[in-house]
């Protein structure tokens, strides 16, 4: 029997799994998809918000303020890219400057450090490419950017390193409450567990309703984005928000930790929890809206576009509590923005709550918070490059030409705990296919390496989900 079963291996589930691994518990981490970080975690703005935006007194405000300063340490321990680059909320009129004043005041109440209101010249000194429409900005130097799926993958790996059982392709079908425990039925197996933590993202309401009467609803709110080529990476060095208006929050322009530019999102409530399609109208809207921020947005350098779903709670605030209808079932639901920023603080809070509730948790003396470092070949100096190729010649073979990613890095991403099993899994971990050719050249080579390392046939390698086959068979000559 498991002590704790976490449902959902997104950023919240993986953070909680790793936090719980500090105790001598039997922990299961269930994921319905073929990889961790496969829902909202892989498609969002990748921002660690400073924390002025959430209404004072809400859980969003509380956990964002607590979460933001925790990122330096956890990203250091797990070797995940994180940069505190600061954010600017741009105002385009004197009215909007007033809104910035309100945000500044809210930030002060939320205890966010170092906020400043800047005039146009001061903004221009930080970001010279802002458009002519900008009249001023709210500057928050503590805001940052992170690789969100890389963080969740690192958390999952570190959790598995510390004996958490990760079970992919396990979709929860039904949950039975027993006297002091639960039985979770997945499409694969039955799992008996004392506690259940519901981190099921857009599906958290469905999961909750398996053990209790409906008390909240999660509305998938879709947002669409563009990614620009690295060659445009210097058009902004800060996160550029637009001042919120009655019409909405506006769109963002920001660099990613890998020096691409991310532009988006729009916001659209939809019905289908699987609908991550992009649409022409919405992408056009994002394109038009971003032109207000920068004088020249180089859309001829788009390398891809995507859509993600926010898990918007009907209650408007994060839902982080034990179900009052079902003891031992803990909801961590409705974690929309600033959920990523709040995640480490939420995990700590949930684990402390569970520890206090149970009363018998013992610290795991062997817990190791450090994940083995990822080698990024191109970030090494010449001596280090020589040394690593000597030790493992596979680091001397470049597979991805756009980003110069070596076979050594790809093999390592496959052979780690919670490692890559799919084409997209390799891409998200070490980036071949993320560049401007989008996998056109390296695709066949990556498939070959995956097949070799996993001991599978190249025909059986999938893109992402189990059913997302790439090859339909062998050619006539090869049969």
């Amino acid at each position, binding site marked *: 029997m498991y002590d704790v079963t976490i449902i959902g291996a997104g950023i919240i589930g993986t953070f909680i799994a790793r936090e719980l691994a500090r105790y001598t518990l039997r922990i299961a981490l269930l994921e319905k998809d073929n990889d961790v970080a496969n829902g909202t975690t892989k498609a969002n703005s990748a921002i660690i918000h400073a924390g002025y935006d959430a209404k004072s007194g809400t859980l969003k405000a509380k956990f964002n303020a607590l979460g933001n300063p925790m990122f330096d340490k956890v990203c250091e321990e797990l070797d995940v890219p994180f940069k505190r680059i600061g954010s600017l909320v741009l105002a385009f009129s004197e009215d909007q400057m007033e809104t910035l004043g309100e945000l500044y005041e809210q930030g002060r109440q939320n205890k966010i450090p170092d906020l400043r209101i800047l005039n146009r010249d001061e903004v221009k000194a930080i970001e010279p490419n802002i458009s002519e429409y900008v009249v001023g900005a709210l500057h928050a130097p503590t805001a940052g950017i992170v690789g969100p799926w890389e963080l969740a993958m690192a958390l999952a790996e570190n959790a598995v390193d510390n004996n958490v059982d990760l079970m992919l392709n396990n979709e929860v079908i039904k949950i039975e409450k027993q006297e002091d425990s639960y039985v979770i039925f997945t499409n694969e197996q039955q799992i008996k567990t004392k506690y259940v933590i519901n981190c099921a993202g857009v599906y958290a309401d469905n999961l909750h309703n398996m053990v209790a009467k409906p008390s909240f609803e999660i509305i998938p709110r879709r947002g669409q984005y563009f990614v620009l080529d690295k060659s445009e990476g210097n058009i902004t060095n800060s996160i550029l928000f637009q001042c919120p208006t009655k019409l909405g929050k506006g769109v963002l322009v920001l660099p990613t930790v890998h020096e691409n530019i991310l532009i988006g999102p729009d916001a659209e409530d939809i019905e289908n929890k699987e609908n991550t399609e992009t649409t022409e109208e919405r992408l056009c809207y994002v394109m038009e809206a971003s032109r207000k921020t920068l004088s020249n947005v180089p859309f001829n350098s788009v*390398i891809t576009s995507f859509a993600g779903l926010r898990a918007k709670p009907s209650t408007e605030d994060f839902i982080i509590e034990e179900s009052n209808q079902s003891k031992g079932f803990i909801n961590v639901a409705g974690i929309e923005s600033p959920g990523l920023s709040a995640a480490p603080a939420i995990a700590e809070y949930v684990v402390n709550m569970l520890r206090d509730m149970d009363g018998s948790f013992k610290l795991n003396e062997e817990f190791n918070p450090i994940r083995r470092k990822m080698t990024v070949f191109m970030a090494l100096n010449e001596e280090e490059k020589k040394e690593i190729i000597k030790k493992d010649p596979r680091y001397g073979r470049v597979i991805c030409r756009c980003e*110069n990613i070596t076979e050594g890095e790809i093999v390592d991403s496959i052979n780690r705990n919670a490692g890559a099993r799919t084409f997209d899994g390799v891409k998200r971990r070490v980036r071949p296919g993320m560049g401007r050719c989008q996998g056109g050249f390296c695709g066949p080579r990556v498939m070959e390496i995956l097949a070799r390392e996993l001991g599978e046939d190249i025909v059986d390698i999938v893109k*992402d*989900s189990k*059913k997302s*086959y790439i*090859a339909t068979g062998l050619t*006539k000559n090869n049969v």
Partner: protein
Amino acid sequence: MLKYDIVIIGGGPAGLAAAIEAKKNGIDSILVIERDRELGGILQQCIHNGFGLHIFKEELTGPEYAEKFIEELENIGIEYKLDTMVLDVTDDKIVNAINTKDGVLTIKSKAVIFAMGCRERTRGAINIAGSRPSGVYNAGMAQRLINMEGVMVGKKVMILGSGDIGLIMARRLTLEGAEVIGVLSRDNFAAGLMRNVVQCLEDYNIPLMLRQTISKINGKDRVESVVVVNLDENKKPISGSETVYECDTLLLSVGLIPENELSRNAGIKIDRATKGPIVNESMETNVNGIFACGNVVHVHDLVDYVTEESRRAGKSAAGFVKGELNNNESFIETKPSKGINYIVPHKIRVENLEKSLELFMRVRGVYKNSKLVVKLNDKIIKELKKRHMTPSEMEKIVINKSLLSEQKDAVLTVEVVKEA
């Protein structure tokens, strides 16, 4: 640090021809660096025929065409390194590369020739809406999977883009037993060569679907269908004209882009129209002693022309090393005028021409019964009648050196004029 007279980056048709020609012109210290596991570049996956009609007066397959050069390269003893990636080239011609055997290589060269070729435009670059399932391939990647890895990519296929690779893959997939629904072109003509339209589509009854494009991709795990929409005269989608086609695969053949990351880092100026280096009559870039040839300069229709251009680059690089290349500051500048998209080369130092100048260019649209008019400082020096011109077929004009020799710091223009 290793030292060579000429380092050539890329062992495809461009790099091979340049290397051989440099050797024939008296340079012995040459190194060809190839990132793939064999020489020949993309030719190795082009197993169809149609290569070599101009150069060898016979029809060869891609690998056969490549093999002729590889054999010659080996016979005359030119050094090459396979599975070796160039990470960086500096403007003083230091080449940094890595491979599994040598580790990190630092090479000082007197001249460098860029012959890195091109890559395909992707789905992301053309912004097709919808979901992101498996089954969407660049045509070149599908070609590699089928012809080199022996892996089949789909059963029912739609092809977006009528470039040569798209046309050739339509036939290849059909021969492998797949059903090709059609090949879509945004224009009212195919982007590839006419002979490929005939031999790859018409001979197999594959529809060429003009003035149509894909507005959406459907499918959660694998492609399930695509939405095709008609385009009006301005290439804007006509609403209400959408048709859904069930298929499991979408191939994209939507253009090729010269791969110039190394060039940019070396400080080489890029032409916005070709997306390749600005070059002179000797295929030399703005950085002294760095040359470029083949699809890295501009995308060619025929490998034969790549070979010709690359021979010129190889010979010029040899001349540069021997101190024979005239480095006069004054030159004639070429400028595309009405109806012309680009002209290569961009600058001409007349002293370096042998007998004549070859100008390569593409027109902007389809022209019937027109002429290409070449002017030097507004004076017509040559006219060429053309019954049919399209952007998909590169135009070549040869101009006698004597027509240029008296001119310095002049501007040469080419324009399309309709005949009355």
